[in-house]
C-alpha cells in the first residue's frame, strides 16, 4: 500500500467519522440551534476531508479541482442555510434583536 493510499484512507475515514458525529449530534442534541451546530461540522469537515482524500488519488488535476469545487459549493450552501435556518428558528423573545443584529 502506497503512502497516497494511506492518506486517502486516513482522510476519507476521518470524514466519515465527522459525518457520523454530525448525525449523532443532529439526533441527540436538545434544541434546534445546538443541532444546527452539529450539522455544520458534518457539512464542512466531513465532506471536505472526503473530497481531499479522494482528490489525491485522481489522475487529472481537472478532476481534483472538480472535487474541491464540490466541497466549496457545499460549504457555501451550508453557511447560507445555517444562517437562514438559525434566523427562522429564533425563539420569539429574541425576535426584537433581529433588526439590530441585521445592521
Amino acid at each position, binding site marked *: 500500500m502506497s503512502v497516497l493510499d494511506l492518506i486517502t484512507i486516513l482522510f476519507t475515514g476521518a470524514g466519515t467519522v465527522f459525518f457520523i458525529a454530525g448525525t449523532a449530534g443532529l439526533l441527540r442534541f436538545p434544541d434546534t440551534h445546538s443541532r444546527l451546530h452539529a450539522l455544520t461540522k458534518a457539512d464542512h469537515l466531513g465532506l471536505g476531508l472526503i473530497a481531499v482524500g479522494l482528490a489525491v488519488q485522481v489522475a487529472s488535476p481537472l478532476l481534483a479541482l472538480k472535487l474541491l469545487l464540490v466541497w466549496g459549493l457545499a460549504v457555501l450552501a451550508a453557511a*447560507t442555510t445555517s444562517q437562514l435556518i438559525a434566523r427562522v428558528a429564533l425563539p420569539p423573545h429574541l425576535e426584537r434583536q433581529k433588526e439590530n443584529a441585521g445592521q
Partner: protein
Amino acid sequence: MMPLAFDLFLCGLVLAVAVAAVSGRELFGSIVFFIVYGLLMALAWVRLEAVDVALTEAAIGAGLTGLLLVGASARLRRLQAPEEETGSRKARAATAIACLSIAGLIGAAVLLLDPRAPGLAPMVDCSLAESGVGNPVTAVLLNFRAYDTLLESTVLLVALLGVWSLSDERSWGGHGGLRQYARPGGVLATFGRTLPAIGLIIGVYLVWAGSKQPGGAFQGGTVLAAVWLLMAVAGVADAPRVSNRLLRLGLVAGPALFLAIGMAGAMAGDFLRLPPEHAGNLILLIEAGLTVSVAVTLALLVVGPPQRDLPHGEPS
C-alpha cells in the same frame, strides 16, 4: 457481494422514504421527505450507471421540485386551506391491501423478465458512429428518437400555457410571481449573487459535455432554470413580465429550431433525419436552442401564473 449489499440498503432507504412521504401525518414533513427521496433516486440512477438520468433527477429533485412544493405548501397555509386527515381505518387498510397486490403483480412481472435480454444497446452502438455524438443517450434523444424530444419540448410549452391561463384577467401581462425581497448585503442576497456565476458555468458545462459524456440540454437547462429561480428568490432579478418579447422568443427558440431542422430533413426526404456528415453540428445547434427554452420554460413553470404587482407584496 458488497455492491449488491449496498444496492439492497439503498433500495430499503428509498422505500422507507417513499412510505414516509406518502403516509406522514403532516404536509410539510411529507414534502421534506419527498425532497430527500429525489436525492436518493439520483443515487439509485448512478448505481444503474444511468448518469444522464441521475443528473436530470438531481437537478429537478433537489432544485425545482423542492422550490415548487415548499412554496406551494406555504401558500396553501396562508390561504388557510385546512390540512386534515381522512378516511376510515378500514378504507385505508383496504386501499393498502389493493396497492400491495398491484405492486406484487408488477414485481412478479419484473422477476419474469428475461435477465439476459440484450435490449437495444447493441443496436444503438452500431449506429452511434453516424449519430454525430459520442454519448449514446444524447444520440437517442436528439437523433434516433428525436420525435419524442421534439414533442416533449412542446409539452413543456403547453404546460406553461396551462399555468398562465390560471391568472385572472387583470394580472395578465404582469410579472411571473411576486416581487421578492432580500436584505441588501445580507446572507440571502450575497448567496443570490455568488451562486449564479458558478451555476452558469456548471449549466453550460453540462450542455457542452453532453455530446461525449453524460449531460445535455435537459440537464443543463434545468440547472440554469434553478439558478435563475434562485436569483429571483434572492431579489437579485425580478421575474420578467410574461408579455416580454425576448422572453417569448426564448420560450419557442428551441422547439422552433428543432422543427425547422426537422422540416429541412423532410425536404431532403425524411422528417427529422439528420445527415450523418452534419449531425454533430446540427445536434449542438438544437441543444443550444433547447437549453435556452428548457431553462426559461421550467423557471416560469415554477414561478407560476403572472400576478398583479401589489403595493405591499401581500399575496392575494
